[in-house]
Structure formats: structure tokens, C-alpha cells
């Protein structure tokens, strides 16, 4: 079968009404469900870990300044589950400093009211640069449910250059619980309950609902595309009032300034959507390069404000837009060559 015949057959299949209004939306919905579940699992590195977020009020002492030598961050929370094994705290991300100048911190945790610390360990501040929501792990506490725990993080060499500071970006405090594997094998009800809990607790985390929204974006845009609003929305304004491109810019800006998500799949989905939209609109690479260069030139401003996390995100998005623009040019060049060959 020739390539042309296959292409024709695919086109005929895609034009069928049932495919357009049912099969494709169902497939996109399924993709959303799978990707969301996949991200929920990968966010905790395991299906068998439940994450519970806690609020800023759980910190009894979280200095507004960088943590200096001898100062500490303290907090407490009531564990909603058994098998507490990790407490994650999100720190601000500043410009990286040399290894030898890093701070050393002591993390310790105990049940509230007890004199002896249950667990204590030392950490280098540089590790928190790579993992801003840093997981302080300890031996699992099997009977932690409904018990109050307090923790401390003490700086041993902190100063105004290397000191850590609790981030303002949610979630800032997360407790994590290890579900025993045996529980799943024994009872289907337990599994369903766990799945429900996992989904419920995951959707309290802004990263997960943001990713989930992005995963459903293809379905949303597809529905607009097949609806009667298509022309109004897809082709409204083709200059700087291009409504759909400005709408698409929002998640990238939100991710840069507020979220700094670690979900790389977002970039792929975003860029694919972007390329499809600009193809539908028959746009050149103008907007891709424009947004890429805008993200690039805002980066030094964030660096000057010592906000490395936003600066890194801005450059990452700049890179993605530049890649998108370059792919567009490449496709245009390829098409020109094909035309030339035909002529």
C-alpha cells in the first residue's frame, strides 16, 4: 500500500462523524486520565506513598530572613495516616554558591511531648538547590496516625549568603506516608480506598492540578475546534490580540512566575499544542521567537533579584519557544524543498 493511499484512508477515517465527536474526545480524555494518574505516582516516586500538605500555620518558627548560624526553622503537624516516613519542606532557590561555602543543617523530628528526638541527621544546603521541596526521610513510624509531631531544622554555618529560607510557594510542608504492599494484595476495597485517597490528596497539590489542567488542554482545544465557536476563538485577532496564543501564553507565565513545575511532560504537550495552533492559524514563527526572546530577556531581571528558580524557568520556556520556532522554520524549509522538487 502506498503512502498516499494510507494517508487518504486516515483522512477518511478522521472525517467520520463518530470519530470526530466521540472517538477522538474519548481518546483525549483517556490520555488526560492516564497522564494525571501517572504524574500523581511519579510526583511521590511511588503509588504507595500518600502525600498530605500542611499550611504555613504549621510552622511555629520560619524566619523571613535567611537562616543564620544557630537559628532554626520549627514546626509541627498532626499525622493523618500511619507509616509517616518523610517530611518535605520547600525552600527558596537562590543563585548557587560554591560547595565550600554551603551551610550545614541538622534536621530532627520527634513526637510532640517527648524529650528524645526520634531521628536526627545533617544535610548540606546545596542539596536543597537541586530539590527545592526537600524530603527529609527517616525510619517509618508505623503508628503515626492522629499523633502530633514536631520538627526542627537548625543551621550550623548559615549566613546571609548561604542561609536557607522557607519558600512562599505552595506546598511548603508535606508529610508522606508509606503504604505497605501487603495491604494491596489482601483487599480490593483497600486498594480502591487507597486510590481514592491518592487522588484526593494529590489534587490538593498545586503542581498536580496544574499538570492535570495542561493534560486536559488538548481535549478542551479540540472541542472548541469542532464547535461553532472555532472561528471566533481560533481566528480572533491575528496580531497581538491573537486570543488563543495569548491564552496559551498564560500557563507558561504562571509556571514561570508562580509554580516552577518539575513536570517535563508539560513542555512537550505545550509545544505540540502550540505548533498545532500556529499551523491551524497559518502563523509564521514570529510569535514563537517573540515569546522566546521575551522570556530570555526577563531572565536577568530575576537573577538580579536572586530568584534563581524563576530565572531557570524563564530560560527553560525561552528555550522551548525557540525550539518551537526553529521547528516551524525547519518545516517551512522542508515544504519549500518539496514544492521545488515538484516544480
Amino acid at each position, binding site marked *: 500500500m502506498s503512502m498516499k493511499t494510507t494517508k487518504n484512508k486516515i483522512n477518511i477515517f478522521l472525517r467520520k462523524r463518530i470519530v470526530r465527536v466521540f472517538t477522538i474526545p474519548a481518546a483525549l480524555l483517556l490520555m488526560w486520565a492516564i497522564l494525571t494518574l501517572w504524574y500523581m505516582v511519579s510526583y511521590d516516586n511511588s503509588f504507595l506513598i500518600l502525600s498530605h500538605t500542611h499550611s504555613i500555620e504549621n510552622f511555629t518558627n520560619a524566619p523571613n530572613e535567611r537562616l543564620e548560624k544557630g537559628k532554626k526553622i520549627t514546626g509541627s503537624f498532626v499525622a493523618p495516616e500511619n507509616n509517616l516516613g518523610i517530611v518535605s519542606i520547600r525552600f527558596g532557590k537562590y*543563585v*548557587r*554558591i*560554591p*560547595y565550600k561555602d554551603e551551610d550545614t543543617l541538622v534536621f530532627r523530628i520527634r513526637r510532640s511531648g517527648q524529650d528524645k528526638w526520634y531521628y536526627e541527621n545533617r544535610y548540606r544546603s*546545596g542539596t536543597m*538547590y*537541586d530539590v527545592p521541596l526537600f524530603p527529609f526521610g527517616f525510619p517509618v513510624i508505623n503508628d503515626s496516625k492522629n499523633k502530633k509531631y514536631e520538627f526542627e531544622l537548625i543551621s550550623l554555618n548559615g549566613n546571609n549568603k548561604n542561609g536557607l529560607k522557607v519558600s512562599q510557594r505552595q506546598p511548603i510542608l508535606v508529610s508522606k506516608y508509606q503504604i505497605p504492599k501487603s495491604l494491596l494484595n489482601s483487599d480490593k476495597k483497600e486498594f480502591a480506598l487507597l486510590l481514592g485517597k491518592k487522588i484526593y490528596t494529590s489534587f490538593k497539590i498545586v503542581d498536580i492540578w496544574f499538570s492535570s489542567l495542561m493534560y486536559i488542554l488538548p481535549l478542551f482545544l479540540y472541542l472548541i475546534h469542532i464547535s461553532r465557536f472555532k472561528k471566533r476563538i481560533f481566528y480572533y485577532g491575528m496580531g497581538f490580540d491573537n486570543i488563543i496564543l495569548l491564552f496559551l501564553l498564560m500557563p507558561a507565565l504562571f509556571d514561570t512566575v508562580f509554580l516552577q513545575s*518539575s513536570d*517535563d511532560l508539560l*513542555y512537550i504537550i505545550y509545544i505540540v499544542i502550540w505548533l498545532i495552533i500556529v499551523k491551524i492559524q497559518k502563523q509564521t*514563527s*514570529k510569535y514563537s*521567537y517573540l515569546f*522566546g*526572546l521575551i522570556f*530570555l*530577556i526577563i*531572565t*536577568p531581571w530575576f*537573577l*538580579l533579584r536572586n530568584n534563581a528558580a524563576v*530565572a*531557570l524557568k524563564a*530560560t*527553560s520556556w*525561552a*528555550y*522551548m519557544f*525557540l*525550539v518551537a*520556532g*526553529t521547528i516551524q*522554520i*525547519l518545516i*517551512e*524549509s*522542508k515544504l519549500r*524543498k518539496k514544492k*521545488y*522538487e515538484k516544480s
Partner: protein
Amino acid sequence: MKKIDKIFFFTIVLIIIATHLYAYRVWIFSADVLTHGDWFLSFPSYSKSLLSIPIMWKSYSGGVMDLTPPFYVFLLLEGILSNIGISYAHIQRITFMWPIALLTLPFTFLLIRSFTKNPIAALVGATVYTYNTYFLVIQSGHLTMMTAFALAPLFLLLFRTTLDKNKIFYGLLAGLAAFLMSVYEFRAFYMAVAIAGFYYIYYLSIISDRKISKAFGATWKLAIIPILVPIILNLYWILPFIFATSSIGNAVFSRELFGKEFYDIIKSTTIFHPFWNNSKYLPFITQPIPFYFFILPFFAFLGLYLNKRNKYVLFFGLISLLGIFLTKQNNPPFPDIYMWLYTHIPGFAAFREASKFYFLIALGYSVLIGMFVDWIWMNWKNGKLKLTKYIITFLILLLSLWNLKPLITGEYGTLFTPRKIPNEYIVLNDYIDKQHEFFRTLWVPADSRWGAHTNLHPKLAIANTVTSNWKDFTNASAYQALGDQFIDFFKKDNSPMLLDQTSIKYVIVPLDDTKNDDNFFVHFLKPPNNYINSLNKLTYLKRVDINTKQIAVFENKSYRPHIYITASKETIKRPLPYERIEFTTVSQSEYRVQLKNISKPTYLHFTDTYHPDWRIKIGNFNWYASLFNKSYFAPNNFHYKNDVNLNSFLIDPEYIKKHVNKGDYKINSDDSVDTIITLYFSPQSHSQVGLILAILFILFMIHYMVKYVYENYKKQN
């Protein structure tokens, strides 16, 4: 070009030449010794020994299969120049510093000039390539890499010309340029070949007007020549590496990733090296990125957009994006991809840290910015924009030249500051050189760059040996400071035997060379006196006074010769009586040993690091015959790794009588055996075959190229 444009062009040419010559004045005009960091100097006795065929076994690190065999070509040049009386200061300039300082800019100019008619655009683009912070950082010590990068634009230009002109002659020239790159740095060659391969695919699918299959059919033979030439010319080491039982490949390609904390997407996009501070060089200290580093990527990608219909520019846009992605190493976005490439793509494991990929960004940006300047000069011809184009062009030029500031002021140090050998090392080297038998010197904690290394007296540094040959005898994790580990090492029961059996005659504590910016004691957290005091207390070492105040020399009187025999198996547990034997060193890969009156099984010891390819041949030896006869050497079970990880062989007179040709040994009246054996590093034979093939190929190339030039000359006249 208008008159004012000509004036502008010649002004910037003058500025660039003046700035460049002044920044590189120490390299170009002086004859001072230059050494810093990983860039060590060579002493005449060693340099002269380099005039030979490639030898696959080297004397450094206790003896090792050549770690950098492609270097042979420039080492041979060093050998030739040294033997005709040229000093090392000049040799290092001829082989490295002059090519870097004088060729990088012109070669890049020629490459960019092939895409644009505007010489100003090509010149500005070339400065972006030549003065990027990564190249300036590697000029502090990694000159082999930088020389290869200096040649890269020439190779790419010739590769492009090969395809465009459809001529084998240019393919051979491109191959020679690629070979020279491979000689200096195989990883740079690897990247350049990958770019060429990528360019070829791009050429077939985008640039060429023909259909891919037709274009491929017409050009594949030409495209393969520049890759084949360096492969054939490197056969002298490729063959032995293929046939060796174990080689450096295992060590080089099994290292873990390193340096993740230094790189990120901002540094790669802005082509900013993490250690660059536009002042004194401070390695391994991450520096903040000045805001003006964002201007170049902005203009580069603007250049790509403005020239989007130019297929060549698009290619360099893709190269830049690829370079940015790889240089950020295993950092976001997509941090896992680098690790995947590192473990799955053949050859990628040689890039355990990603800084080398800055080369791709430098190459890409230089063309993109060149084409950006070209665009503004084409389009901004009237009104206010006319003036703006001069300002922007000058701004870009200034941004690149500004990176030369620390070289101009001299604050950069490193290889741009003349060094002087401290007098104490002249005394020490003289003392060592005067002795004519083989022994090693062990430097504590590390060897000084001023201490001579020769094949007769190789240097060892305890900081290296405790992580390689002697790693089974000490445990680094048990000590807070590395210096403590080294001090404690000498106190161990088996250390005297380790030193003896490794042929270490002298243990040397160097001086803290702060004058030359080379006080390595700080890395091991102990000052020189701590080592000296500790070594003074040892009974098996005796301090010798060689008229040096700071350098301390201790003698180990019971060290073993390079090759010796014992009646029983050598052990580290107790000292055994040993016997000296006569031997001749043919090369580092070949020794002729005389054995006399061997009446019972005897153990022959060779105090170089164990390698399974060290073999013995009893009787007459012919390297060529060893290639085709599997049982040419004595069986492998006579060769083993001894307690100290060195080579030992069992010499059994009964085996000789039963299996060796009668003409190859003599039976004495007491039934003992006299014979001559050859101790041989067997990959050397493959090296010699590769060398012959490479020489034949060079002769063929010369013949072809001379004929081509002559015929062209005849046609034109």
C-alpha cells in the same frame, strides 16, 4: 562596500588585532615557561625520548597502556624539535599556543565568510567563537582541547566545500583537518564528526535541490572520505585498542557523571562558563552571570529569525539549540535525557561532564550572530538605522572582546603568566638524572610539575596511587583529611614491601610553590612539615641531604630493580631474597632479558602495573610473527598479577626444554638453562601494523593531492 564602511571595517580589524596581540602577548612574543593546572611541562631528557614510533605502554602511573594514544603525532613533533635543540618553551608554543592564538579567529572568519559576503559580519561572528568564556577557561590548562576547537571551523568549512564542489581533493583536506583534530582531542573530533554527519543529513533533506535518494547516491562517497581519513591515520592506536585484552576504554567509559551542580540552562544559553569571573581564574567556584551575557543569545536567535529563509543559518540554529540542551547536562528541563545518552550512545560516555558541548553553542552563535550583523548591514542602509547598525556591530564586538580583559590586565594568571622553576627543583632533578639505573620516585602528597619525569625515573604521586594500584591497601573513607590517609599509609606493615616491589627509591615531599600559584598542599589539608615529620620517624626510609632547604628527599635502600627474579613467589607479607638480572630496554613495550643457570622454576618480576597483554617469548623474537601465531608467546598461565598488582611470570626450565626450539636456549653442564627472553606488550605489534597502513595511506594521499594540484595548475596555464 562604501568608503565609510571600509573605514569601519579596517578600524575594527585594527582594534581586534591590537587587543588580540596584547592579550596573547605572553604566548606569541615571549619565550617564558608556561605551566598551570593540568598543563604540565616536559623536560629535555623526556622530550628527546619521544622521537620514536608510537609506543603503546607508557611509564607514567606505575606503567600503563597509553591513556592518550592519539597524542602521538604532536609528541613526535615534540621529540623532533627537542632533538634539534629547540626549548620546550618554544615547542609548546609551536604545537599549541601559536595555533590557538593565531588560527582560531581566521579559520572561524573563513567559515562564516562562506555564508556571507559581508566581511564585517564574518569578523564579528568569528570574535564570538574565539573569545567565548568556555574557550578562555580551557586556555588555562586544556590546550589540547582548545587546539582541536581552533581547527574545527576549518574542518567544517572543508567538509561543506567537499559537498558543494563535489571533489575528492577537498574531502581529503577535510579528512586531514579532522585527523589533526583527533590528534589533539579525540572528543572534539567526535563532536566535529557528529556535526558533519548531522550537516550531511541536513544537506540531503534541506539544502540539496535534489531528492534525498538522488543526492545521497551522488555524494555519499565524498561525505565518507573526511571520516575515513582520520580513522585510517589513527589505525596505529585503534588496532591495538581493539585487540588489547583490556584498555583504557574501560576506565574512561565507566566513570560517573560529574559537575551537575556547575551547569544549568541559563549558563548554557548565555554561553557563560560557570567559573568565569572576568578576573583571576578560580576553578570550581560557581560565578554569577553578568546581565550583559544575555545580549549575545538574544542577537543570535534574532539572527536566526531574520535569516529564516537561509538554510545554512537554520542549520547553525539547530546546532546552537542542541548545544544548549547538552551543555546543561543532567539539569532541568528533561534532566534524564543526558544520563540516557551517557549510558546508551556509543562514545557519549567520554563526556562525563558537559562543558565540552559549549563548543556547539559557540559555533552556532558565531554563525547566527554573524548573520544577524549581515542582516542589519543589508537592511539598515538609510536614516537613523544606518547609525544604529554601527553601534550594534560595535556593541557585539565589545561584548566579545570584553572577555579578554583579564588576559590584557594579566590578572587571569594560569597559562598567561610566565613561571620560573624554583632552584631547589633544578638541584633535585640533577641529583635524580645523574643516576643511571631504573627506579621510581614517590611524591607526597602529589608530584610537582617541576620534578622531572623520565622513562628511567618515572614519577608517582601517592594521591593517585592510593586510588589506583594501592587502593586495596588503604581506605580513604577512614580519614577526615586525605593528608592523614597518606601519612598513615607509610606506617602500615606492608608499606615497605609495597615501595620495594614498586621500585621506589626516593620518597619526595615537594615545596609549597605559592610563587607559581601551585600550592597543592591545600587540597589535602596538611602542610609539608606534617609529611616530613612523619616520614622522618620511619625506619625503612632515610632522609638524604641533597642541598635543598624545603624539598625533603627520603631514600628507600631496599627498592627492587625494574626486572628481577626470585626463587619463590614474591609476596607482600615478608621480604624475600631476590636476584638482579641483566636486561636491555628496547622500548617501554619491549625488554630483552638474559636468564642464566635456571635449574628450577623461577619467578621473574616486572615492576610495572599488571596488564594481561604483557607476554614473554623465549628465544628469538619477531614482532611480525607474533601477529599470526597464537602460541607464539609462552602460555598466559605463566603470567599473573602479584600481591602488589604488578607483573610476575613463572619461568620453568622443564617447560623450556619440552616446548621451546632447541636453538632458543642452551643447556649447561649442570642441566640448568641459559636463554634470552623478550618481555613484550603484545598490542605493540598491532600498533606497528596500523602505523605501516597509515604511512602507506599518507603516501597515497600525497601522491593524489600533488597530482590534483599539478593538473589544475596545468589547466589554468
